[in-house]
């Protein structure tokens, strides 16, 4: 088994429980997400993995009637606390959604959206952020000659990489990905997975995926969710080869899903 040094804990989830009105979606989730690692969250539909992902940037609270109990720490600081600036939190914890949704504006303006929101106006600065972000998202070579054409004209795979560039432009520390490849063709998916491997050098990544092979390929750690519980959380190579829980084994061997 390859060695995997313990990295610093970037995100610590402590007894996290989420309620949608009366419905309890998550029960006592405890998880340490290490820095510069890819952590995959797997499990069948409705198991709570996306809900958990959305507690990490406080996006759950957009849905009225949502209540979060427990605590999430980012670099040791609680994020569920009255004096936390949600805008600053979301700047640090970026998110890539299932469906690539580009803003109805040019490629350039899409990437510059975040920096502009956060007060960067200087054209030279914006140009270099756009350039670097697109480069980091492996999209620069394909779009450098048409930065000012509408982003909607890009292919699905390109749009997803544009969305990632848009997240990178805000200079986050953590990137949350909610089934980022589910709308992509196989070639775009493998490009995205290669990109994830590159990005973890500089970012901490938490990815929700339906696809177990994908989790096995891209992640260092995997958490298996079922009916709102974190059934098992371990190094990916351990979890897939030697699941400790019967339910994990049943799921990864395809006995249900």
């Amino acid at each position, binding site marked *: 088994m390859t060695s995997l040094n313990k990295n610093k804990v970037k995100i610590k989830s402590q007894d996290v429980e989420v309620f949608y009105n009366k419905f309890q979606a998550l029960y006592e989730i405890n998880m340490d997400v290490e820095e510069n690692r890819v952590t995959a969250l797997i499990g069948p539909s409705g198991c709570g993995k996306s809900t958990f992902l959305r507690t990490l940037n406080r*996006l759950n609270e957009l849905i009225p009637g949502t209540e979060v109990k427990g605590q999430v720490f980012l670099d040791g600081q609680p994020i569920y606390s009255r004096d936390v600036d949600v805008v600053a939190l*979301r700047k640090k914890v970026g998110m890539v959604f299932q469906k690539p949704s580009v803003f109805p*504006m040019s490629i350039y303006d899409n990437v510059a959206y*975040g920096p502009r929101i956060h007060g960067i106006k200087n054209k030279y600065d914006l140009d270099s952020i756009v350039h670097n972000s697109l480069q980091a998202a492996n999209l620069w070579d394909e779009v450098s000659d048409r930065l000012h054409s509408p982003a909607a004209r890009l292919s699905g795979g390109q749009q997803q990489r544009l969305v990632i560039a848009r997240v990178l432009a805000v200079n986050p520390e953590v990137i949350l990905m909610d089934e980022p490849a589910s709308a992509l063709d196989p070639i775009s998916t493998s490009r995205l997975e290669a990109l994830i491997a590159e990005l973890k050098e500089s970012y901490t990544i938490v990815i929700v995926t339906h696809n177990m092979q994908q989790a096995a390929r891209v992640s260092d750690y995997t958490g298996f969710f079922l009916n709102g519980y974190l059934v098992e959380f371990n190094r990916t190579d351990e979890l897939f080869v030697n699941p400790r829980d019967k339910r994990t084994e049943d799921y990864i061997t395809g006995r249900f899903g």
Partner: protein
Amino acid sequence: MGLADVKEKALTGLFWLSALMIVGVLVLIIGYIIVNGISAIDLKFILEPPSRAGKEGGISTTIVGTLYLTVVSLLLSVPVGVASAVYLEEYANPNSRFAYLVNLTAETMAGIPSIIFGLFGFVFFVIFLNMGWSVISGSLTLAIMILPTIMRTSQEAIKAVAPELRENSLALGASKWQTVQRIVLPSAVPGITTGIILSIGRAIGETAALILTAGSSLGMPINLSDPARSMAVHLYVLAMEGISMERAFGTACLLIVLIVILNFLANWSMRRLSRAAG
């Protein structure tokens, strides 16, 4: 050919005829107006003020009056209508009593006949607030009248903006207002424009409410406190008092042209606005 076939053919023909009637009626009305009105229109008709109660001269003051009333009423109602739509769709809890009340009020207001608005405007603006028969009294009345249309269409336009766009913007650290301003409103502009165009149509064709609030003076309206006669009111007076049918048709002709021009301008300016915001 069986009986069922005959029935099918007959019905199809009937439906086709109904559709044709719509086109026919429109062509007939516009054709009739143009045939009867075109001879009254020349440059003098457009540029000269009316004299002898409209029997002679042109209709320049009523064109200005119409534009004045329409533009001022839009300036008053568009910001309020769009702002309340933004509040209801983006900020208010959709199940709140207040949101329910506002929606109900807008629906009720949309169904009130314009003469009632006129009567209210007359009692409230003209008499109680002592604004007299004036551009401002007329515009305020029109503004109230078209407000529900503006609000409703803006609401629909805002609702149609994909929720994913909002989530993405918020997840990038944008505030709610930044999201509304930079993502939601620019995407909603085409729908809002439709509401504005519908409102222009209503405002420009309004007579009853305006006779009671803007008066029917033939002088050139300069200040907001000046009385004004709109083209629609002028047309009504010319026809009802038997002053000149030819001039009534000429006015109607120009009114249609004006509506087309204003619709075009509304489209164009909203497109520019959305580009500036995006």
